[in-house]
């Protein structure tokens, strides 16, 4: 190894008061590059929901013959749920990235700079956003190829993408809230089964009015996941349903607000610098 010591740069370095507008884009860039450079994280997060979609579309196809089932295409019905599963991966991915920063000391590096906490939170979610966009585009494309129909047309597909991104950010904010409080990625991973149970106790497999078991229907009615699924599904099956979309966006934005609040509180505790 050779270290040149002759040409030392001057110590005086011109600096300005850093703003969130210069910090957040660079943190976002890092988050996006980090996401894109980890295919091992991107590929399962994208393909696993597609595999479940394929299995459900074949195995539960007969559900379409139930009286009152809203469509005769189970692929169309089940497609919305792929977007929600992507959200679960957003929890894990975002939380694990932050936990790795904690564990490896990168968070300390950030703390030693005049970093704006809001820039840190926004930046961390940028990778989640890009991944969410990629997943949404993939699911819509694969769904259409597999025979799904979007009743709301091209505009509806765009709204689906927007809603799915908000859902990913909402779940990502939960990941941030968890990641802020743990020091090891494995601890984030441990919430995965819990999240999956939470997802399945919703209207993902059947419309709520067709769920026969009372307690299940009751939980699904209070589960915000049901409304996010139904918001997406409305565009696929019913066309433009303002109420379903409002509830879907409302639940996602509510979770996002809650997640960001908890994450910010965690960040305040975590940033113990004086």
């Amino acid at each position, binding site marked *: *190894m*050779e270290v*040149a010591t002759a040409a030392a740069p001057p*110590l005086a370095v011109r600096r300005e008061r850093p703003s969130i507008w210069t910090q957040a884009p660079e943190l976002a860039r890092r988050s996006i590059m980090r996401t894109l450079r980890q295919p091992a994280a991107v590929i399962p997060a994208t393909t696993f929901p597609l595999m479940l979609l394929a299995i459900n579309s074949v195995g539960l196809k007969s559900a379409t013959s139930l009286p009152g089932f809203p469509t005769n295409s189970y692929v169309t019905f089940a497609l919305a749920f792929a977007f929600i599963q992507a959200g679960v991966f957003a929890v894990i991915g975002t939380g694990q990235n932050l936990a790795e920063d904690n564990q490896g*000391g990168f968070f300390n590096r950030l703390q030693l700079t005049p970093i704006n906490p809001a820039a840190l939170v926004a930046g961390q979610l940028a990778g989640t956003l890009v991944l969410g966009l990629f997943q949404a585009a993939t699911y819509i494309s694969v769904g259409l190829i597999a025979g799904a129909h979007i009743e709301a047309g091209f505009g509806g597909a765009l709204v689906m993408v927007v809603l799915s991104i908000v859902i990913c950010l909402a779940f990502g904010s939960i990941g941030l809230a968890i990641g802020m409080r743990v020091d090891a990625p494995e601890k984030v991973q441990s919430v995965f089964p819990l999240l999956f149970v939470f997802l399945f106790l919703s209207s993902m497999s059947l419309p709520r009015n067709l769920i026969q078991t009372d307690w299940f229907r009751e939980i699904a009615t209070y589960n915000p996941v049901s409304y996010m699924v139904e918001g997406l599904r409305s565009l696929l099956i019913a066309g433009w349903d303002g109420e379903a979309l409002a509830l879907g966006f409302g639940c996602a934005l509510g979770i996002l607000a809650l997640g960001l609040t908890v994450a910010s509180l965690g960040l305040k*505790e975590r940033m113990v610098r004086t």
Partner: protein
Amino acid sequence: MPSSNGVPTEANGIEVSGLVREFKGGVRAVDEIDLQVRPGEIYGFLGPNGAGKSTTVHMLTTLLPPTAGSARVAGHDVVEDGAAVRDAIGAALQEAALDPNLTARDHMRLQGALHGMSKADRTRRGDELIERVGLSDAADRRVGGYSGGMKRRLDLALALLHGPRVLFLDEPTTGLDIQSRTALWDEVAHLSRDEGMTVFLTTQYLEEADQLADHLGIIDHGRIVAEGTPDALKAEVGRPTVEVVPADHAERDRAADLLRPFGELVPGTPQGAAVRLDHDGGERLADIIRTFDQADVKVANLELHEASLNDVFLTKTGRSLEGAQREAAEEGDTGEQPALEGAPA
């Protein structure tokens, strides 16, 4: 503003008084330490694992609030004026905390933006520093593929990016091969001697402390047990030893008799005799050679062993540094702060 003992800390010194850090369960990782670092000097903080070195660095770099006591870095109080301290310092902490998915240039770009440097400045200075630490050829490679030495060099370059006046290096050469270690020593020495940067360096390597540090603090179980220049510390605790191996091994006892007037006989190698000198080694060495010459005892080998920092550690703590390391490893005692150190005691 000069400090109470006259050491100016305004520019880029460090002054610590009664600094304490307790963790949950009452563990005192740092126990009322006092130290002064003069501007532009390299201060070595030597101790075994778990002695409290990293906890001290975390407090001085504002990452960890002290439980008690005070510290000023570059003239700013670490508790009252943390932002000003962070502005004045650079730090390469124990883990070379780098994102394996980013390149060296990506790291420079991010760090520069967080410090408020313009795009042009961070590119220019980032490139300069990358070249300076010898990473130009690897600047666009992801850090995940770097060797330990390359990561440490990038870590150092990142710590220097915003032009700090005080540099904290927490065990910067742990795990490095000797070549990488020596190169890093050269760079650290250059920063202090040619650029006037104050360097606070923790280490568990005696040689590193001896080679680099202008002043040295030895810490054990959270307390500073000795402080001074390496030479003064060695002089304080140990006189040099001279070992003579006669050409004819049968004359070993005679060699011991000849050495006896020069000091206290101590165990040497099986073939030789050794004496701990009661006066300065340089002067007495000539007398010893003359004595052996006059007695017509042919000498196969003659060695002067200076007192080492390990002798200092041994004298001050009752155990060798190596023994202390082993002890810490056996106990699993880190004494250092946990990864998440938010909770004060």
